[in-house]
């Protein structure tokens, strides 16, 4: 979920927060049960009397995808979301400018990515929901308590993991292998990309997979600064190719795609086609991180949940904070306990399977909190691996100023909000030859140019102009506008035993649910990689004729972003081929409880440099097909 760097220039301890008032006292906010057509109907109690085939915890990338696939497959599904109901179509500020927002849209403790960021009731700190980091570590845990979760503010960078990424241990002896190959997941990447709409191109580069023909949407042309970087990077041997982003550069071919996705399922075909037809193509204005009222970008509440609701097979309860998975006397999952946040009361939802899709660490927390006589150490934790091998992405960045970009002729440089091109990892050969002091790769994201001025505009210009003010300052700002650029690396972290989360024996949230404590340690692979990133970016900036405007650290520990800051945490309930070394199998099915599934990033075995959300959805789709077929075959009762 790459997002722009927070614009916060303020720091403040979390603001004391009072629990929500009862639903009756509040406007537009209640634990809501949604059915077909987003119309509220029936009470939770009535619906719970139904026999759900699946109870899904979470409504984001994994939960939304599971709900879509299972509801389309004819299963009766209940989705529980800890945050409020949220509708990007009516809630997204589209053309508003910074001047329309408090503090010109600057980040605040409540809205770290700025006022317009789509995250509501979320952030690295959520009121009433603390967590702890062990001494010496500083993990930052981003949450988004809202329907659709983090898909609402996600950077929408949709890169496939490649064949190397599924078998890292086999390649270099580090980390662990996935119990599947790239080819096992490739069809689900195709399906996911076709469903959500991803622009990009097939370049055939090493470990950077192509999509099947007809899947990708055409990528937008590069902007000026992107073309300049492309030209100069060519001289450095760094490929710059179209990025893959989940944004519609043209309307989806709804009839064809829905037919190809669901050849033998008329209902699924209908709801998919109808939902796709409600999505417009991007009109190249307004940042995607605000959400998208025309549904041009991908968000779970505009792309996954509406067709699932339209099947009539999905109910959604919002403001439902799940505490634990409940287990029957036979040792099988039979539902969940949750707190109705609007009443504070404990509630229960039951179903034939339970699917945890609450985000990696929240899923681990629920499993660890699901203690019973049968499972005293938490559910599905016989291996002791729940909460273990948590990973984030390695992040480091460098900014620069490029004289060639000064005084540019005016032109529209907004584009599809985020980057149009990027640099995939290109030094596989160097690594294989042992010429680098880190084992895994990174890709480069970058941006700059003549974007809409926002908070902090021209903040560093005093240094460039020796403190100009007056008419000269205005002229200098016009000259420098659009000439700044920033490169950010996103690299693979190798899982290690010192990076994990556990239940904090001393912590509880405002709902009375035990909280997490994080432990973290980077290995030299990550630290050296971060150093390499910064050196590379400095050389690219210089190759563009520019000057570096931020620090380039020789100490990797200073170059690397704090764990959790890149918001790509995965692991904690990893999959594997051996029950003693993993929590779930390749279909996200718990080894110990056969009707319990973990479909979010918790099941990740490795965390390639590729941003994880696309892979989360592909894995969730594959697992959902397995769940549907097993339930049809009654092998899951």
């Amino acid at each position, binding site marked *: 979920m790459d997002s722009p760097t927070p614009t916060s220039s303020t720091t403040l301890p979390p603001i004391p927060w009072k629990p929500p*008032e009862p639903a009756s006292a509040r406007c537009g906010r209640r634990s809501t049960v949604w059915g077909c057509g987003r119309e509220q109907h029936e009470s939770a109690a009535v619906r719970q009397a139904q026999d759900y085939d699946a109870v899904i915890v979470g409504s984001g990338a994994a939960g939304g995808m599971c709900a879509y696939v299972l509801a389309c497959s004819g299963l009766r599904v209940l989705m529980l979301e800890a945050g409020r109901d949220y509708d990007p*179509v009516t809630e997204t500020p*589209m053309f508003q400018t910074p001047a329309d927002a408090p503090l*010109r849209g600057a980040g605040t403790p409540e809205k770290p990515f700025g006022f317009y960021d789509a995250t509501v009731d979320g952030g690295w700190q959520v009121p009433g929901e603390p967590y702890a980091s062990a001494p010496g570590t500083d993990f930052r845990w981003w949450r988004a308590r809202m329907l659709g979760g983090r898909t609402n503010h996600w950077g929408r960078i949709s890169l496939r993991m490649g064949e190397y990424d599924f078998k890292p241990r086999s390649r270099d002896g580090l980390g662990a292998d996935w119990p599947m190959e790239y080819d096992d997941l490739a069809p689900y990447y195709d399906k996911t990309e076709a469903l959500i709409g991803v622009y990009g191109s097939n370049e055939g580069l090493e470990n950077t997979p192509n999509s099947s023909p007809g899947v990708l949407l055409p990528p937008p042309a590069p902007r000026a600064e992107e073309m300049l970087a492309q030209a100069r990077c060519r001289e450095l041997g760094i490929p710059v190719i179209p990025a893959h982003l989940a944004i519609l550069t043209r309307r989806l071919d709804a009839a064809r795609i829905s037919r190809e996705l669901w050849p033998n399922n008329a209902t699924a075909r209908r709801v998919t086609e109808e939902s796709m037809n409600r999505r417009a193509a991007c009109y190249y*204005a307004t940042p995607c991180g605000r959400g998208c009222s025309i549904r041009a970008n991908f968000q779970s509440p505009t792309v996954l949940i509406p067709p699932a609701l339209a099947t009539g097979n999905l109910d959604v309860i919002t403001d439902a904070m799940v505490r634990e998975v409940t287990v029957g006397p036979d040792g099988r999952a039979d539902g969940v306990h949750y707190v109705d946040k609007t009443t504070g009361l404990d509630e229960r939802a039951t179903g034939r399977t339970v699917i945890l899709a609450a985000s990696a660490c929240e899923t681990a927390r629920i499993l660890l909190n699901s203690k019973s006589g049968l499972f005293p150490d938490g559910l599905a934790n016989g291996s002791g691996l729940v909460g273990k091998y948590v990973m984030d992405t390695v992040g480091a960045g460098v900014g620069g100023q490029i004289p060639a*970009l000064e005084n540019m002729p005016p*032109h529209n440089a907004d584009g*599809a909000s985020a980057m149009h091109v990027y640099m995939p990892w290109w030094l596989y050969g160097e690594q294989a030859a042992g010429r680098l002091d880190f084992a895994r790769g990174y890709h480069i994201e970058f941006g700059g140019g003549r974007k809409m001025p926002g908070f902090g505009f021209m903040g560093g210009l*005093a240094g460039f102009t020796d403190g100009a003010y007056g008419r000269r300052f205005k002229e200098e*700002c016009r000259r420098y506008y659009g000439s700044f650029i920033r490169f950010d690396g996103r690299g693979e972290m190798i899982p290690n035993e010192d990076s994990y989360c556990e239940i904090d024996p001393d912590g509880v949230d405002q709902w009375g649910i035990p909280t997490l404590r994080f432990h973290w340690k980077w290995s030299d692979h990550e630290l050296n990689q971060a150093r390499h990133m910064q050196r590379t970016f400095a050389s690219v900036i210089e190759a563009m004729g520019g000057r570096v405007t931020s620090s380039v650290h020789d100490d990797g520990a200073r170059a690397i972003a704090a764990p959790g800051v890149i918001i790509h945490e995965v692991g904690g309930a990893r999959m594997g081929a051996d029950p003693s070394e993993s929590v779930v199998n390749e279909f996200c099915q718990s080894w110990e409880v056969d009707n319990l599934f973990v479909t979010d990033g918790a099941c990740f075995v490795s965390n390639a440099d590729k941003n994880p959300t696309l892979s989360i959805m592909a894995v969730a789709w594959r697992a959902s097909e397995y769940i549907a077929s097993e339930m049809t075959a009654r092998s899951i009762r």
Partner: protein
Amino acid sequence: MTELPVRTNPEDAPGGKRTDEAESACSAPNAVDRRHAIKIMALAAATPGLASCTVDGGNGSEGGGDPVTDGGDVVADTPNPASNPKARGDAWDPDLIDPVIPWDLELEDDELASLAVLCDLILPADERSPSASSLGAHDFINEWVSAPYEGNGDDLVLVRGGLRWLDRESTRRFGDPSRPGSGPRFRDLPIERRTAICDDICYAETAPPGFEFAARFFDRVRFLASTAFWTTPEGMDDLQYVGNVPIPTWDPPPDEVLRHIGLLP
């Protein structure tokens, strides 16, 4: 330019006048009691001239439960308090379509008058755009330094103290030595004298010893005034920013741009 409703004074609301000089609503986002919050949001919806945007999607996002105003008095507790009934309306879940600023403004009129003069010294009117104060830069700085966050509180002290420093320095340099403490104020100095002081504090690297604080103050005001100025429509026009408009297709940069950056001969 557009201005956010900061707290509202009932007398001001129907007139469409900017309403940031009014009485306090609350001290911090989360200190708003529900009833009061609804009043604030209702007033926000009633205040004309807000740059609110009806989002596409069929269900008009605005208008539900329009507040009833009567001579400026708001009938509170409307069922749909603002443009977005789903939002709780506090700092964690604000109404993104029709925002409000629910904190007191701290700077006094006298301070704002001095700040406006300084903002215009930093960003004066020229042939391409108006001056910073005419676009409300000093009002934005007031909004910023009044925000209930630690860093903003630091800036309040910095700005307040800096304005006092400017007056004291004006007196020291240009006042009558026989009558200490009763000299010209910064904002009353002729432009050359104001510039003489600013030349000494405009850049931390070259500021004389003893002027470190003043240089930090000047730099912060320059930063905040720049943010205020270039985020207005007039400021964006000044830069010739041409985006934030829907366009049907995305084309490569024009040839003149490619020639400019050396990618075309």
